[in-house]
């Protein structure tokens, strides 16, 4: 949380220091974004997002067992 005291300190900085601080923060944010995904590591994506055939088979199974339950 940014305190009022910190904001007052920042406000009092000379223009050049404010610009420098801004560059520093942008650099920090960019680094944090880059750190989310590390090079050389594998990030498996398990989602079967286009498993149409499997989805149809499973829906048919649900429907068939539903009919059995009501038979």
């Amino acid at each position, binding site marked *: 949380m940014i305190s009022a005291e910190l904001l007052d300190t920042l406000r009092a900085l000379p223009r050049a220091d404010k610009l420098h601080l801004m560059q520093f923060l942008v650099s920090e944010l960019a680094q944090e974004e880059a750190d989310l995904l590390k090079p050389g590591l594998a990030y498996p994506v398990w989602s079967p997002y286009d498993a149409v055939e499997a989805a149809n088979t499973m829906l048919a199974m649900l429907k068939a*067992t539903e009919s059995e339950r009501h038979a």
Partner: protein
Amino acid sequence: MRNAERYPFISVESTLGEAGLQPRLPLTLTHHEQSVTVVGLLDTGAMVNVLPYHVGVDLGAVWEQQTTALRLTGNLAQFDARALLVSAAVGQFAPVRLVFAWTQAPHVPVLLGQVNFFMEFDVCLYRSQLAFELCPKGASA
């Protein structure tokens, strides 16, 4: 969302901070009187529900007796999968029937996908609040 239950996002990777939080839902699966409580990932991008091999075994399911073979996609394409029908209890709601693609993949999380978790439950994700709400279909009207 009326009649909904609210759940917090759960941290699955602490080094990622807030980015490591995911919508994971605790639910109890029952198959032939045998029950297991799992935590499933709400995966809107998954076309089907996915059950890891060991959870099916814990439920007492026998691979050879599940004769409906499935062909999955992506990272799961390399593993055999069979359809498995179970009863699922979420929170205080009445149990529903969920059909899973029971995969032989060892490390996959329980995935709750379109067929048929999202056909049974209405879900609202509030990422900024790190929470989600859900209720059975028709219950929120």
